[in-house]
């Protein structure tokens, strides 16, 4: 076994071949790719479901499906996107693949636990699929499973809830693995302030996963117990308080929003300096803002419940805390923009996606402040404004960061390059479609169109039609992007070890990496974003930058 042979050709544990070398692997890189395959599938399915929803809403009355079907489809779209794409997406795929490499380690701390997490993920997905086909039909509660509806309705909620429980377990164990890896496997010479920002953001995320996930686990257990035993813990007739369920649910699910966005921010913090050929502005500020978001983000859950009947004092406190989260988020945005200032910018597909991220995420963040303020919230609560806001943050933010990560690390993961032209076309179409899709929803929401409704008043038809049109454009962009990536397997244009001029450790090893990641002991740089070497190298080669 030569040290430079890629991990595709060597199995861990040794001696496994074929399918077994994947299904029983302990290799964090293979597991990352296995997550990629599974998550890819779910993303496409849920995108399709979302498109069906918007098609239904394009015209008034029945367009392609009935109201029950509509309820189930939006529940499925939400559950799949949240639990099977957003939460595991970046940490499970890119975190698994690159966190150990960026730390100079040869694997995660608990490789077998890592494999176990993957199986839990698959088991959870299996439950989610099975719940569609057995019992009394599709669950139709929305992804929040609010009581009393989730406890009383006859649809197959129990199984979907169990699926979410198992997926939560999987995500928590991944977090546990990352925290331990971060502390115990890091290269001895790498100090805390020499760690790449993507890994820092995963570390913050991992803590949120460990801290918050058990709360949703117990809440979901209670939903199942209520369905089975009918205790009445949330039933006002029997002394229970339904509001308490909402508190418990959001105690996890709001921090979960930061589980979704923090890794995305980490990706952007990696990409911006590389393509600006300039050290990241405010490294320490970004690290601290990640931790601040993780902490403050855990204390804002009740801003989902202003209209649920909380006291004015709670509304005031939670509104204030919500505003506080905007500060560290803005620190990051300013740092990214300041990094690009006077940089030598190479507009490649990963950077293009990152720029779109900054723009869309900022809109999402600002509309979040509208919602976080107690007054305006009453006006737009549970309207399409909310839908547009969280799609700006979740899709415009995390989704675009995911695409950026995909295009940034694709050459490293598979050792092949894709066509920049097609990637750029796909990116632009997706972003333009995105704007056309969600801006009408912001306006519809301000005009008072509620979310989750099957039908609407005639004056909302134009907006909904436009949104549907934008949706098709967006999906077209996504299809072009994915087809382009998949075509790179057919063309097989080999990627060099460092196609971008990156400085973090993953760019100092072959593409794709060998089994133990580092053929020789890695050299740890004083500061992870020092581009002097990269700039010198490209000047010597007579190129303006490193991008081929």
């Amino acid at each position, binding site marked *: 076994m030569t040290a430079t042979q890629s991990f595709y050709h060597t199995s861990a544990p040794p001696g496994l071949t074929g399918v077994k070398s994947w299904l029983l692997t302990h290799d964090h890189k293979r597991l990352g790719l296995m997550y990629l395959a599974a998550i890819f599938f779910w993303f496409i399915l849920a995108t399709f479901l979302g498109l069906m929803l918007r098609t239904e809403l394009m015209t008034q009355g029945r367009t392609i499906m009935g109201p029950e079907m509509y309820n189930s489809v939006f529940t499925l779209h939400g559950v799949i996107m949240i639990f099977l794409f957003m939460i595991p997406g970046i940490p499970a795929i890119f975190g698994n693949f690159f966190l150990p490499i960026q730390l100079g380690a040869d694997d995660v701390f608990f490789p077998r636990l890592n494999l176990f997490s993957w199986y839990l993920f698959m088991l959870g997905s299996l439950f989610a699929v099975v719940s569609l086909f057995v019992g009394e039909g599709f669950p139709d509660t929305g992804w929040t499973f609010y009581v009393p509806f989730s406890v009383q309705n006859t649809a197959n909620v129990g199984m979907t809830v169990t699926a979410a429980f198992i997926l939560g377990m999987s995500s928590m164990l991944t977090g546990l693995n990352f925290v*331990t890896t971060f502390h115990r496997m890091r290269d001895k010479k790498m100090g805390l302030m020499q760690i790449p920002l993507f890994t820092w953001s995963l570390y913050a995320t991992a803590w949120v996963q460990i*801290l918050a996930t058990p709360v949703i686990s117990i809440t979901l257990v209670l939903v199942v117990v209520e369905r089975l035993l009918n*205790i009445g813990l949330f039933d006002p007739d029997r*002394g229970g308080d339904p509001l308490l369920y909402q508190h418990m649910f959001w105690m996890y699910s709001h921090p979960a929003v930061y589980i979704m966005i923090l890794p995305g921010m980490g990706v952007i913090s990696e990409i911006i300096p590389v393509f600006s050929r300039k050290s990241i502005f405010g490294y320490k500020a970004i690290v601290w803002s990640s931790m601040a978001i993780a902490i403050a983000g855990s204390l804002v859950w009740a801003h989902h419940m202003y209209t649920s009947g909380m006291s004015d004092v709670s509304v005031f406190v939670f509104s204030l805390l919500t505003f506080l989260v905007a500060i560290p988020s803005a620190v990051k945005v300013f740092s990214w923009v300041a990094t690009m200032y006077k940089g030598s910018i190479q507009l490649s597909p990963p950077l293009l996606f990152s720029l779109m991220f900054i723009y869309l995420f900022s809109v999402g963040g600002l509309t979040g402040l509208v919602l976080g303020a107690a007054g305006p919230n009453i006006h737009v609560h549970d309207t399409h404004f909310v839908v547009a806001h969280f799609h700006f943050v979740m899709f415009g933010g995390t989704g675009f960061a995911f695409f950026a990560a995909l295009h940034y690390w694709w050459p490293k993961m598979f050792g092949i390059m894709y066509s920049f032209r097609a990637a750029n076309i796909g990116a632009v179409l997706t972003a333009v479609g995105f704007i056309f899709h969600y801006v009408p929803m912001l306006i519809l929401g301000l005009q008072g169109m509620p979310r989750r409704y099957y039908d609407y008043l005639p004056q909302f038809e134009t907006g909904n039609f436009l949104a549907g049109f934008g949706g098709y454009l967006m999906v077209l962009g996504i299809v072009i992007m994915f087809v382009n990536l998949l075509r790179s397997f057919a063309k097989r244009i080999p990627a060099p070890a460092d196609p971008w001029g990156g400085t973090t450790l993953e760019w100092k090893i072959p593409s794709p990496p060998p089994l133990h990641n580092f053929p020789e002991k890695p050299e740890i740089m004083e500061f992870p974003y020092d581009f002097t070497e990269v700039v010198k190298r490209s000047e010597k080669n007579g190129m303006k930058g490193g991008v081929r």
Partner: protein
Amino acid sequence: MSSRIDETGIKIGMWLFLYSEIILFGGLFVLYAVYFYEYAEFFALGGKELDRIIGAVNTVVLLVSSFTVAASITAIQRDARKQTIGLLIFSIFCGFIFLVNKYFEWGAKIHHDIYPNSDTLVNGEPGLNIFFGLYYVITGLHGLHVIIGMVLLTISLVLVLTGKLTSSRFVMLDNSGLYWHLVDLIWIFVFPLFYLVL
């Protein structure tokens, strides 16, 4: 992986996991706190109906077993294999006694028509319904953890018997012990919350 086993790292992982278990029960304790605030007098009333003697016996049983598990870890470090085996068997036995007591306790309550969705609770005071609802959920989940702890201790026992767990490598026993202490610790909170409500 490095050639030497990093036991500190494995323990860090275990502590993180224990932490998540505490949060899991923490969610239930939040429910308890809110409902106690709302129904304090009924919680006191309900608490009087629980058998304090059995509760106290179970507390002692768990405390003793926690001690014997800790002792077994010291024993394996000193290479006293037989002692380790004896102490572990005793600890698992304690867990078993705990469950038997719990069985009789639950049985008696169910016999008196006090169980989730029973007529007495559904038609009775809402405060009592919530108290006993929480009682069944929390002690039930705790009982489940006792069983998991016993399984972990049994695995450690088998490993000692087959000679795979020795004075130079006992992190499995260490971690099972930590888990068992957690189960004990949670009971220390559950006991006063249900049996000794003022």
